[in-house]
């Protein structure tokens, strides 16, 4: 079974600075997707960014970008120019053909200091 590990339970960043959240995963599949989801204090989970494993180019969405290292099974999220609204729980997730379902990491709570 696939596992997803987020080794940082909490992170803190100063407003306007850059922060990187770590995620590693374990799989034997070659075709899969990786995600970062954000859960603000209002609790509704929203998709931040998605990476397709067969694409070498790292996905980018405005201030959010990933560093996808397929061989190392690493998928970190970089948030540039952090804003107060970025404060949330961030979950890394894996989706492959075998299970046909999302597997989530334990989450990282990001705090943004003004």
């Amino acid at each position, binding site marked *: 079974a696939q596992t997803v590990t987020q080794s940082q339970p909490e992170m803190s960043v100063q407003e306007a600075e850059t922060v990187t959240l770590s995620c590693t995963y374990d799989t034997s599949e070659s075709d899969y997707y990786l995600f970062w989801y954000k859960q603000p204090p209002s609790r509704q*989970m929203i998709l931040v960014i998605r990476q397709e494993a067969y694409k070498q180019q790292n996905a980018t969405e405005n201030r959010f970008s990933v560093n996808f290292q397929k061989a190392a099974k690493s998928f970190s999220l970089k948030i540039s120019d952090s804003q107060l609204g970025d404060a949330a729980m961030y979950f890394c997730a894996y989706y492959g053909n075998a299970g046909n379902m999302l597997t*989530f*990491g334990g989450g990282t709570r990001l705090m943004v200091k003004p």
Partner: protein
Amino acid sequence: DVKVTQSSRYLVKRTGEKVFLECVQDMDHENMFWYRQDPGLGLRLIYFSYDVKMKEKGDIPEGYSVSREKKERFSLILESASTNQTSMYLCASSFGGTVNSGANVLTFGAGSRLTVL
């Protein structure tokens, strides 16, 4: 605006009570999911459904059951609630298909926080 709506944001129940958590989506999604969220454990899949009247067990189905009588509605049932089922429950939905389709992008509801006393 597409939505996944969970009927109750907060519930307090007593041990042994039967609990229903309702979820409705308006996106004509084939897939629906129930997750349980606990601190440090992330989200764990309880049950999911690919189609009406169809269900599959997730990682932690014990103590739960589900019902999907209509495409838009997916219910989670706790037959006899226990204190260890105190948690946040998240419903989600997605389109059907393979990993290379929209099946892997989930839309979540706001969550239902259940406390069992």
